[in-house]
């Protein structure tokens, strides 16, 4: 019980240390790619690994809010931006590998691919939508947009996750075990979000959206308030 209480309210310095740990931990997949044997088809390994981690970090960031509600660990939300930006980071690497090694900057071929291949269309769609979310992830941008508009914009993340899973599903030849797991987990995450949503009364919605927004921006006072709700 005491332990649980301790975890519920971490001090600011503790959260900062934790953020640093998360920041470094998210680099591990990249570090492994840098030192590991990439196999017979290194480009394929790079493509798959960066794509998979873009999806993994996206899913982890989506899991944070339900997990926070479930555990009561309010500080979890303060790690969300780091994890979500890493999803964007790995998505950039993923796209980069494709542009350089698969197409070697053949922009015409890339455009053709995006238009013609559903799995590439879906992947590119996810990437394009990630860009505004990454750009508006700073505290300044959250303030400028205002909590409510910011949150509306960032709901795009669900669309990104769904089309990310389709991107994966449509590229496999036969064995859909991998994408099927992602689809299942995504369904779980989406239903967790539905179930823990604040009641659709305008007042409650406003309050809810404000507090979770500020949570992302790192304000602790509002976090505490959220905890009292």
């Amino acid at each position, binding site marked *: 019980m005491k332990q649980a209480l301790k975890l519920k309210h971490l001090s600011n310095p503790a959260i900062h240390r934790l953020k640093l740990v998360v920041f470094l931990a998210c680099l591990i997949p990249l570090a492994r790619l840098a030192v590991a044997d990439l196999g*017979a088809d290194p480009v394929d*390994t790079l493509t798959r690994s960066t794509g998979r981690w873009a999806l993994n970090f996206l899913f982890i960031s989506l899991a944070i809010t339900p997990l926070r509600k479930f555990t009561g660990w309010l500080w979890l939300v303060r790690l969300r931006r780091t994890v979500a930006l890493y999803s964007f980071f790995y998505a950039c690497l993923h796209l980069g590998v494709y542009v350089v090694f*698969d197409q070697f900057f053949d922009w015409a071929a890339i455009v053709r691919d995006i238009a013609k291949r559903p799995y590439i269309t879906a992947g590119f769609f996810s990437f394009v939508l990630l860009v505004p979310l990454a750009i508006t992830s700073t505290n300044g941008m959250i303030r400028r947009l205002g909590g409510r508009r910011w949150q509306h914009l960032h709901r795009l993340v669900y669309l990104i996750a769904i089309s990310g899973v389709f991107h994966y599903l449509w590229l496999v030849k036969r064995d859909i*075990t991998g994408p099927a797991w992602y689809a299942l987990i995504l369904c779980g995450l989406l239903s967790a979000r539905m179930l823990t949503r604040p009641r659709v009364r305008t007042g409650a919605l406003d309050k809810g959206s404000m507090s979770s927004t500020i949570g992302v921006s790192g304000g602790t006072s509002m976090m505490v308030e959220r905890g009292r709700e």
Partner: protein
Amino acid sequence: MLIKRAFSGDPKPSEITDAKSYAARRCFLKFSCATAMGAALMLPTESPWAEENGLAADFNNLKASPFSTTEEKTSFRDATRYNNFYEFGTAKGDPERNAHTLRVRPWTVAVEGEAGKPRIFDIDELLKISPLEERIYRLRCVEAWSMVIPWVGFPLAELLKRVEPTGNAKFVEFTTLHDPEQMPGQRSTMLDWPYVEGLRLDEARHPLTILAVGLYGNVLPKQNGAPIRLIVPWKYGFKSIKSIVRIRLTEEPPLTTWMKAAPREYGFYANVNPEVDHPRWSQAKERRIGDFLKRPTLMFNGYGEQVAHLYSGMDLQKYF
């Protein structure tokens, strides 16, 4: 969520001893310094694969073939660790990991159907059907990667001749072993087992079409389709069926495994064709294993001169 094969601590490709040097080293150790000269002469006579499969010696005195390419060969290591052989799992490294359960002796191949003299051949008999040749072929996978592999084998036509196809024989159907005990991948319903492939009789009789029993001068490793497999170099790799137990001459075109699995995506012919895309991805380019950038894919995988006439007048967009 990791890509398993990537982080297994494998040596870098540059560190890998090629098959010949490896065999040579074994010879060297076995015969010691005093007979080092002799051992060097015996270079192709011993390999780990040969020992494992109970063969006294590797293939030697292989006939060279005018069909062989002079392109740089894929490393032995890559050719034996990057395989599509769903009978042992769907990941590229699965066959190397899991194929040890395959028993390649005793092994027979039934050649039957529309044949005057149908019969069952023992694998050791098949090895002597015709002088074994080395055929260095390009291999183009439908997944847009490729390799160059020195196969050891003999023309399928030589085997077909022995059973005397009847006038009704128009197609050849090939079947892989079906035994989930030995092939754990067959416990899944991923594909409709056993794996079945097919050729038109004229394709089967074409001099480029071989039955392979080895690669790199060695006995065929299990993950590459031991003890005997088909090689049809102008078609996508999945046509080159592995671990064959039955060859049947038929009047009707066989329904192949991939046609059953995804009829919209895989046709009977599956000729390498950069102009006919897979419904979901382009076939215009390929990555040669070992390269970083892709290269253009060649019509009929570069064997057009030899095989284009087989398809003259056919709409290859339709008969893909």
